[in-house]
């Protein structure tokens, strides 16, 4: 049972591998397992395809992180102004 499960992962595990792959954190084995699952599971293929699209869109959008220290400063300024 255990062995079978490790060879053919379920949707949850395939999804987990697929997410890790988006951040280049999936191991070789995880990638193989995911591909095995995708070969037999249409909904997961759809998820994987959308997930990859999402990664590409985020890259393309070139979103910039707003610096945390600025956020903190703005919060303080706003609070100070309100309490005036």
């Amino acid at each position, binding site marked *: 049972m255990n062995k079978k499960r490790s060879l053919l992962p379920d949707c949850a595990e395939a*999804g*987990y591998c697929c*997410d*890790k792959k*988006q*951040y280049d*954190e999936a191991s070789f084995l995880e990638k193989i397992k995911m591909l095995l699952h995708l070969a037999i599971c249409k909904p997961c293929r759809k*998820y994987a395809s*959308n*997930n990859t*699209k*999402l990664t590409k*869109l*985020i890259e*393309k*959008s*070139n*979103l*910039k*992180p*707003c*610096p945390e220290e*600025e*956020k903190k*400063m*703005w*919060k303080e*300024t*706003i*609070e100070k*102004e*309100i309490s005036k």
Partner: protein
Amino acid sequence: MSINKIDPTKWVDKYSDYLFNYTIARVNDRELANDIISETFLAGLKSMKNFKGEASERTWLISILKRKIIDQYRKVNSNKGRAEVKINYKEDSNEGDWLEEQAPDRFDKTAEDIMENEELGLAILNCMENLTKKQAKIFKMKTIDDVDTDTICNEFNITPSNLWVIIHRARTTLAQCLEKNWFQNE
């Protein structure tokens, strides 16, 4: 029509990423963008009583931000006469470098592309509003700030598998939202 409420204590958490990316696309200078956003929040606080609740809080803040950005453009323009032209390619030390320095931006990247990417970024941030606060924060750290898994786990005191569950939920929600609004264009 529902009346939108205003709550300045939540502005930074809810809108700063959106405002920041909106501004940086227009002024292309971090420091300046920070100043403009700071001014926007202050102006927002001052004119809060004029907020009628007809538009969303964010739309209202963006309209203030737009005015601040235009003010900035005007300031830059009025300084134009005093602009300094620097030509230092004659210096011996960097002779030969000028070709590279003078190279134009990529030809294949048109203004339209840049605008589309900016809209896309704002669309993604828009969709992120469907996430819970924790999901959004962790997703942003992992995806946009590129913080590694261990650091995030330590900060939020969660296990890596917790983290991946959160990421999975966030990605599913975002993909669904973007599918409605964006994927069909691709």
